[in-house]
């Protein structure tokens, strides 16, 4: 039986809720307020310089080509690395879930290694993997006859290079969730399909994929939320370049806020990120609901 002792409950809750309230919820509200002000480097010296400007920051954002560039880059990044990393995760999970395979632990561990490592450090490593003259990628590609590319120095290749690195870094995480999802599919479904003479592809399409749908929705939402917050990879590997071709929303927010101290403008960028993530999640959930109703 649970106790209805409000005083003790309050004492247990107070430290955490106070910390979250003061250092999370209040800053969220303050950020919302700041996004309607012209808070800048002069306000930093003296708060009385802050003026309310209504929706001016947001209006300016909509006409700011750099903002749209950053949005476009971030969306492109999400649209490519999201599905790609999920596909690689699923492939790895299917391979590892096969009964014919032994030493699963060893393979699983090597696929998982990039997940636990420090993003900044592996981004540094990949900068050299992409080196136009001495990098491993060009070396490997030379075996299949692809000429050396300046991956991070080319405006059309830099973002795909970051996509590739992110897929490498993250696929192991979703792989683990997929493996658990696969193990939850009842074996008799496959046995029944075998009796009907179904091919491997039939079974994958009609049993595996539908049974994994809830797992896939969950993975898609969490993966997309994470990818929208892209920052360290381009910050380390390209600094947003060349020619802003890898500038992300978070990096733009960081530059405006913490390099130029345009803090009102910067919080407006942060809220745009929030709105995008929120909308993306709603869309995902709506798709799941519609599928569930069918």
């Amino acid at each position, binding site marked *: 039986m649970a106790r209805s002792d409000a005083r*003790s409950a309050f004492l247990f809750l107070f430290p955490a809720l106070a910390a979250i309230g003061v250092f999370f919820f209040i800053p969220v509200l303050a950020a919302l307020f700041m996004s309607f002000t012209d808070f800048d480097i002069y306000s930093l010296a003296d708060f009385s310089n802050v003026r309310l400007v209504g929706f001016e920051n947001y209006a300016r954002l909509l006409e700011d080509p750099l903002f749209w560039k950053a949005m476009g880059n971030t969306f492109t990044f999400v649209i490519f690395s999201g599905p790609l990393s999920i596909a690689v995760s699923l492939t790895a999970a299917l391979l590892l879930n096969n009964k014919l*395979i032994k030493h699963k632990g060893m*393979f699983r561990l090597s696929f998982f290694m990039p997940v636990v490592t420090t993003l900044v450090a592996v981004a540094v490593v990949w900068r050299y993997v992409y080196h136009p003259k001495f990098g491993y990628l060009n070396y490997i590609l030379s075996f299949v006859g692809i000429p050396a590319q300046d991956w991070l120095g080319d405006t059309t290749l830099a973002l795909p290079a970051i996509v590739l690195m992110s897929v490498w870094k993250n696929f192991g995480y979703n792989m683990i969730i997929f493996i658990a999802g696969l193990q939850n599919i009842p074996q008799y479904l496959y046995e029944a399909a075998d009796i009907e003479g179904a091919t491997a592809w039939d079974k994958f399409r009609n049993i595996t994929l539908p049974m994994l749908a809830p797992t896939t929705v969950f993975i898609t939402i969490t993966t997309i939320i994470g990818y929208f917050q892209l920052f360290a990879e381009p910050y380390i590997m390209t600094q947003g370049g060349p020619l802003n071709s890898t500038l992300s929303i978070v990096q733009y927010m960081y530059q405006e806020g913490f390099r130029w101290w345009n803090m009102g403008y910067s919080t407006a960028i942060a809220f745009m990120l929030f709105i995008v993530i929120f909308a993306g999640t709603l869309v995902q959930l709506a798709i799941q609901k519609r599928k569930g109703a069918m």
Partner: protein
Amino acid sequence: MKNLKIIGLYTALAVLSILTLIPFFWMLAASFMADGKASTYPPTLIPNPFTFVQYEILFTRLRFATNFFNSLLLSVLVTGVSLVFNSMAGYAFAKYRFKGKGMIFNALLSALIIPSQVTMLPLFLLLKQFGFINTYMAIVIPGLANIFGIFLIRQYALSIPDSLIESARMDGATDFQIYRKVILPLATPILITLGIFTFMGTWNDFLWPLIVLTDDGMWTLPVALANLMGEHTKDPELMMAGSVLTILPVMLVFLVLQKYYMQGIMMGAVKE
């Protein structure tokens, strides 16, 4: 036919493993190379001559020992403090009845969708008012408690039988004693899981430390590494030694406590 399939599967797995691990092999190899030896074509995985000179530079000419210490101290500190805050709150949400419980809990869960970047500017200003910028407090304070941690502990504490709590109460235990002597020992697995997540999260964190730690003596390893990159782009051997140092501790923590980490992923995955 079956043998062919087995060979195909193993080949696919082996290729994927090699592709996944090559960056690590190269990082490790290059970190033991002398200046310029990692800039060769074709790239090599054998350091010749084998040398510790890059690590020496990091520790003597640069401040990596300090940065390493900062990372370790902050990760341990944040992990320790947040485990206390989160476990108390998680326990209260699981085992107490009070007005507004459902509402508060749901409000917290909904807030999980707010990206932390939204809070960064006001939080920076707040910490600046307290004089906490460029101090350890700037990392510890925002990490005191977190919603996901409270949620994990609550889920786990729900499975602890009420009868255990009741019998402890019969024996005259106070609320705090029950938390200390009954709940915490039983919740050890989830505390370890959450501890690893927090430790790794703090160790690997970049954007926030980059913002609030401005002095090279205060930097954590990722910030130090990022700044080093700016000046030493042409020294891959040195950069790789720095990367090894940054990655090694989290890798070790993970390898030792893998089981708990994997369980944590699964608990997060079923939170819908």
